[in-house]
């Protein structure tokens, strides 16, 4: 199990690096047809994915914690 997890993570690191390299490659080979300025940045999607994911989790959790999440019998009680 331990070794398997290590292999999986190795695969992940390789694919992360590959996707970034591919991004740079695609940029230099002028294969992009950007509609917006940020699409020209070779690693824009990587950064957006990473930061976007953190924002989604933190913001939704905050919203739920302070407002929307209630105990399971809320509708029976109220």
């Amino acid at each position, binding site marked *: 199990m331990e070794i398997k997890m290590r292999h999986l993570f190795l695969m*992940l690191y390789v694919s992360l690096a590959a996707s970034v390299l591919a991004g740079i490659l695609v940029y230099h080979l002028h294969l992009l047809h950007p509609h917006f300025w940020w699409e020209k940045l070779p690693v824009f999607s990587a950064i957006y994915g990473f930061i976007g994911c953190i924002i989604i989790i933190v913001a939704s959790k905050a919203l739920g914690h302070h407002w929307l999440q209630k105990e399971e019998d809320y509708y029976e009680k109220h």
Partner: protein
Amino acid sequence: MIEWLHPGLIFLLGALLIPVLKGKGRQVYLLLLPAVAFIDLILISKGVFGTGPFWQLSFMGYELTLGRVDRLSMVFAYVFVIASFCMTIYALHVSETGQHLAAFFYVGSTLGVVFAGDLFTLFFFWEVMAWSSMLLIWYRKTKAAYGAGFRFIMVHMFGGICLLAGVVLQLQATGSIAFESFEWGLGSEYLASYLIFLAFIINAAVPPLGAWLADAYPEATVTGAVFLTAFTTKSAIYVLIRGFPGVEVLIWLGAIMALYGVVFAVLENDIRRLLAYHIISQVGYMVCGVGMGVFGTAAGEMAINGAAAHAFCHILYKALLFMGMGAIIEVTGRSKLTELGGIYKYMPITFWLYMIGAFSISGFPLFNGFVSKTMVVTASAMWHYSIIWLMLEGASIGTFLHTGLKLPWGAWFARKEPVCEAREPPKNMLAAMGITAFLCTLLGVYPKILYNMLPYPVDYVPYAAGHVVAMSQLLLFTFVAFWLLKGMLHGTPTITLDTDWFYRIPGKRVIWFCEKPLMAFANYVDRNVMRMAGFFGNDFWPLVVTYVENPLDKAFHVRLPELLNFKEIHDKIKQIKDRELSYNLLYILLAMFVLLVYILFTVVVE
């Protein structure tokens, strides 16, 4: 030439034979109906029956069209029939006749909506669709299911009344019941359009009117929920494309909807409710696409193609996802993330089939979500809607985060030891998942099949280097963020308030008002009526009979009406009070509905 046959009618009439069949014969018959409908669709595509419209009949002086056949109706009809075949396999082990009947009526009426060429036909099938889908929820037979189904039908009846009112106003204004794209603008002269629009976006589950979806679908039966995922919302997308292409407000509603589903999915603990919020999110892309679909522009055609293509793909992968989670519920009886985990070793096949659905919905290259979702996103880029583009891409992140990571992680892994016994689901369920997963991959690898069906000619290359790299980066780095924060994503034993609060809590107050103060008042009135009856006493009535009734009878041959039998009245009132109030509400609603239909029709006829 052979007469055209309505594919919906194959389901609607074919369903009537289900109760008389049993065992293997019934199972074969259940699969035969979608197969026949599929062959019918192929024959229609090939033009064997000629070109439409078909089945035009006269009703009360209006020309109804039951068979409008064009590229748009055909692409939706194809996916509905294909999906119904896969779903029927998934439900093959169910012995309860009623569930199959409800499902087939649901599919048949949806096809009725798709081929409806006029507004009366649309309204008729729209209502059959609502009622038959409600039954799929009620067949779960739990208290929660009855409640959710009841709220579901109330919302849809409201939508149905809006539709009918809109249709009647439209008819008065234009004198035509043809179902074409509606006039749109600001002002009271567009009231008919607004009402019809409202009915359509209620069925498309656009917030704040879409809470019924996440409220009701997770309470349905395991197999019923799989049917529910496909038809109501996607037929709403179809009618929106038909009636309101290029209406700008839809762009914003759609983009908000895509993110709205994502936010609620973070907070959900119920596995099928989480997926239900992702229906809302994915339908958001389609609604957005409809909004951008301005006639006669390249970007508009791309948007409409994108909306139709995404509906097609979405039906397949969402059914697959619901099948996977349904399998967990079927074998463990549990549906909450807090009560699941560690059961991967018991059901690896289900897990991997589910993951194909998860990769598809997330839009991984080589899976069908990628070839359709990127069309809508590209359309937003062609229109230069930068904020919309960012919102749609952001929703992609959330989609992978929940359906691809949080949900399978929480349900199958998350704990070292399994929380309960589990096993692979029955063979028919696995087979259904296998076929659906195959279709998801096939369309991802070879999108030309799908693109050839779309309403407009497709000039789009999904596997351009830029698209593939951007999507891979987006999803891989989403995984990194998930792995770092996965501690925050454990399920919590809570529910999440949605806009259904606005009718659940005040609704409860109304019922309390009816049951307590109103009934107290009624009792007070009853008592006094009874006391008056008692005042006359037992000695009084024989005297009435002797001195009033008998002479009346002799002179005019009449007797006092039965109505004066107070004891019977008292018993009747008591009986009514003993019944449950909520069911009486349903009858009252039904009666009001029928009355309304009657009144509106008399207005129109005059």
